[in-house]
């Protein structure tokens, strides 16, 4: 379990995080949603020890993470937004280095490498230089690597950015498996459907502040089920309906480009912050 309390961070006078607090339980996927610059990556960087917070606290399994940063880092696994692998080394060598960095003994490194390459379905690529892998494979290697030391908390910073939809779904399945194995998973994403599909709870982060934390269903409930969305027209607002028939009936009387679609988390985000996710 990980709990953040009143987390604060400032970069050159600009407040990147303004008192962010939330908890994630073991076996839960928690998504941070927000546009660029909202503070998602800063939150992940603080939790993974890459950046120091200016204030607040992080409690990990009952211990203050800031008081014992090396221990805290040993409990967290990080999948960074960029593919940060040694491209000249093989898949197994990248995992081996990670195991050593986290102090795993030789037998455990060997066992974990074999188990995790099976887990991410890359056992046959064990001795392939990373440079020769596709983007999706590289992403799976970073996920396998982050699990080498069996972290209690997994931090995923935009784990599917730039991947095609098929690969993205494979990564989602993998994240679900990690959740089922009991890890607390913190996910940042731009993809609304990713947060809706994966997360048990979602937090809206905007300009360094949490605007809401709840299940996707609860966040979307005030808006009904269906939305009439006028396309390419800033002067007209999205209209929400409980029933599809009502949305279609409303749309029949409208002109211009529009679409009738399901309500999504971006509708809830826009309503709470007055801005979109882009």
């Amino acid at each position, binding site marked *: 379990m990980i709990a953040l309390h009143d987390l604060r961070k400032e970069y050159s006078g600009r407040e990147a995080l303004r008192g962010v607090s939330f908890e994630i339980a073991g076996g839960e996927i928690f998504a941070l949603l927000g546009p660029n610059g909202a503070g998602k990556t800063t939150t992940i960087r603080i939790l*993974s*020890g*890459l*950046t*120091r917070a200016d204030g607040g606290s992080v409690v990990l399994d009952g211990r203050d993470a800031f008081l014992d940063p*090396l*221990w805290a*880092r*040993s409990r*967290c696994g*990080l999948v*960074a937004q*960029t593919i*940060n*692998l*040694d*491209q*000249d*080394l093989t898949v197994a*060598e990248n995992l081996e*280095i*990670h195991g*050593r*960095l*986290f*102090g795993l003994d030789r037998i455990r490194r060997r066992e974990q490498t074999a188990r995790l390459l099976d887990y991410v379905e890359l056992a046959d690529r064990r001795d392939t230089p990373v440079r020769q892998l596709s983007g999706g494979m590289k992403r799976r290697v970073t996920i396998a*690597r982050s699990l080498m030391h069996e972290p209690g908390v997994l931090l995923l910073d935009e784990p599917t950015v730039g991947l095609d939809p098929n690969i993205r779904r494979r990564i989602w399945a993998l994240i679900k498996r990690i959740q089922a194995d009991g890890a607390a998973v913190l996910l940042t994403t731009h993809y609304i459907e990713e947060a809706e599909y994966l997360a048990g709870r979602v937090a809206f982060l905007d300009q360094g502040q949490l605007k809401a934390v709840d299940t996707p269903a609860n966040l979307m409930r005030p808006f009904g089920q269906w939305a009439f969305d006028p396309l390419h027209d800033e002067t007209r607002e999205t209209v929400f309906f409980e029933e599809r028939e009502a949305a279609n009936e409303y749309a029949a009387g409208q002109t211009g480009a529009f679409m009738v679609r399901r309500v999504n988390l971006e509708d809830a985000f826009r309503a709470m912050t007055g801005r979109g996710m882009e």
Partner: protein
Amino acid sequence: MMRGWSAVFYREMLILRRRLWRLALSMSVSPLLYLLAFGFALGKAAGFEGRTYLEFLVPGLAAMSSMTQAWSIASEINIARFYYKIFEEIQAAPVSAAGYVLGETLAGVVRALMAVGLILGLARLFGVHLEAGPLLWAGVFLNAFLFAALAVAMAMLVKSHADQSMISSLVITPMAFLGGTFFPLDRLPQWAAATLSLLPLTHAARAVRRAAFGQPGDPLDFLLLAGLGLAAFLLAWACVRRARD
């Protein structure tokens, strides 16, 4: 305190093994050119203190290469930091700042030892036989440790490859030529010799040269290199801690 140093060192050794032949080739080019140019061009016409110029030059080249090869670890760190983003992977691991500095510094030392081994081997092909005893290797080790630790510090301070290259041009290249590598400092005007004796490479070149000629070493050279090495290590440690933000 030094937690994680062996993992950092192991990673650099894996990369070194992968590039071993390319690296050995590139390490050999400059010394080979110096040996050819000075060995054949000057031949036996020039010499100092009863030794040929090549005999004088080779220990200087060894000291200089131990500096430049140890310093080159900064480029490896910057590639890992700016291009592959591996530095973040290491920062997110339970590796202490001191452990990181030690791992990278020792990797720089290994590269330097390799380069010096190659130079001494090449020199033999040119008929230069020097004593490669413990004192020579101690001088090389201390010099390489100092410049590798400085390289780690520098790699943390620069913001781009261009900055790194500029610092190398402004600091390392002049030192390589003025640190007693190619000519004896006692032939310079006193003020110039005194100024150049402030350079660590001057002491490294003197320590390595004396050892190579079978002369007793000056403890001051070794103590100075060890002291500066410790200071550089502490500087690198502070820079790595600072790099967390």
